[in-house]
């Protein structure tokens, strides 16, 4: 098992944000977590990334407890809703960032970045600054910046929620292709039912800080809490 999360609890002052959250994730698989805004999805991802500390519970990566490991040593990349590219670096340097801080040689950086830029369809934009890019292009760069360091686990926090429908569909397709090609292990958090189903190998639903992981997609669909039944009923009523 690549990732094991056991009984994570987190409170912010009087508010309970996560309650006995647990999950397991196998290598090269994507777990989608569906949930409404404020249900604790982002906090869970930030705890796994080491950006927020849990009050109790354990996180194991490849069987090693990483509770006390700072985020820079976990190698778990967190991708937020906004692409958040470094505004002072162009596309090439944004993607190369992780390699530069690992002090890789210039030739190796050039080769790796160029390959990834090609795969992400960003050749024409290589020397553009972030403010010159569209939302979809920024998210592609964000993917590139995350993938280039070959992280064992990628945490995606509603990465496509700010994109228009067409771009969102393209990005979902791109992610599926990349996830297969790079053998990515990831947790994909979203509040969109279709996206959750489309992106996942396994699926969970989070409500008021409690996470339910389903055995398969059918059990997720048949659970009345997830909202899938209401969605189906809506489309059938048209």
């Amino acid at each position, binding site marked *: 098992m690549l990732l094991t999360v056991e009984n994570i609890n987190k409170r912010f002052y009087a508010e309970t944000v996560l309650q006995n959250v647990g999950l397991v994730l196998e290598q090269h698989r994507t777990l989608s977590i569906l949930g409404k805004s404020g249900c604790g999805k982002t906090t869970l991802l*930030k705890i796994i*990334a*080491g*950006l927020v500390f849990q009050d109790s519970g354990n996180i194991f990566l490849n069987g090693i407890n990483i509770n006390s490991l*700072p*985020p*820079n040593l*976990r*190698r*778990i*990349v*967190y991708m*937020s809703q*906004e692409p*958040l590219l*470094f*505004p*002072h670096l162009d596309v090439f340097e944004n993607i190369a*960032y*992780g390699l*530069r*801080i*690992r002090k890789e040689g210039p030739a190796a950086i050039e080769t790796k970045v160029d390959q990834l830029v090609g795969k992400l369809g960003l050749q024409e934009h290589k020397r553009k600054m972030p403010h010159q890019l569209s939302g979809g292009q920024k998210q592609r760069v964000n993917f590139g*910046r*995350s993938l280039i*360091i070959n992280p064992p686990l990628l945490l995606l926090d509603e990465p496509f929620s700010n994109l228009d429908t067409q771009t969102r569909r393209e990005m979902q397709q791109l992610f599926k292709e990349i996830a297969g090609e790079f053998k990515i292990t990831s947790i994909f958090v979203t509040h969109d039912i279709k996206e959750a189903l489309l992106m996942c190998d396994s699926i969970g639903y989070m409500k008021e800080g409690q996470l339910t992981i389903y055995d398969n997609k059918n059990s997720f669909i048949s659970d009345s809490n997830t909202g899938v039944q209401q969605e189906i009923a809506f489309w059938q009523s048209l």
Partner: protein
Amino acid sequence: MGGLKKAIVIIGIVLSVFPFVFLALLSIAQDWRFPFLLPSYYQSARWAGIFTESNDLLKSLALSFAIAIMVAAFSTIAGFMISRTISLNVKRKLLLFACYFPLALSPVIYSLLINHYFILLNLSGTITGVIIAQLLIAVPFSILLLSSFWSGYIRSLEDIAATLGSNFSQSFFKVLLPVARPQLLVCFFQTFLISWFEFGLTTIIGVGKVQTLTLKVFEYIGEANMYYAALSSCIIILPPALFLWVNKKFVFSNLN
């Protein structure tokens, strides 16, 4: 409407430029009395005299410049670091509020309050004392100016950099400093000006021994020596004007 707009612009330009032209004229005037619109005679000896050994205007210029550069550099760096620490503190509003106190007091009153401690520490009448006294105003100013930089967006950038593998110093030097560059330059320039034109603290803490250029101007005014006051005022304007031009030409233009 177009004519009125043009007239307002011209009046604005004249009002902005007039004090500088007036000072320049006064500094080279030999004899300028009412009701004459312009000086009767002009002379360059006063300007040439700056470079003579007996004239200490150049020394004051160098001293002012050295003090202002040190105050600006230290307060910008300290302000950046302290404002970051404050932004992460749960009592940040209270701490930021406290930063207003040194700025709310008149510099003269403030220096009278702290002067006793400077005497005890043998800092009174020294350049170090004047620098420390000016920092007591410049650092809170920097903290207040740079506190707006530490937004949720910057915190998120730091988080992203950390998950990509950056330790604190890598995030600081490769992300935070470059992103903060425009704000840091503004802060450096502003604190330079605070120090450059500072009078109250420098007078009381420096007890007349630390003769900055601003003190020289007031000295000449006190002596009713308007021509030398104008000359030193011209000199006092030059470094900030040069600084502003360099900033505009070479620094801020590269940020766009």
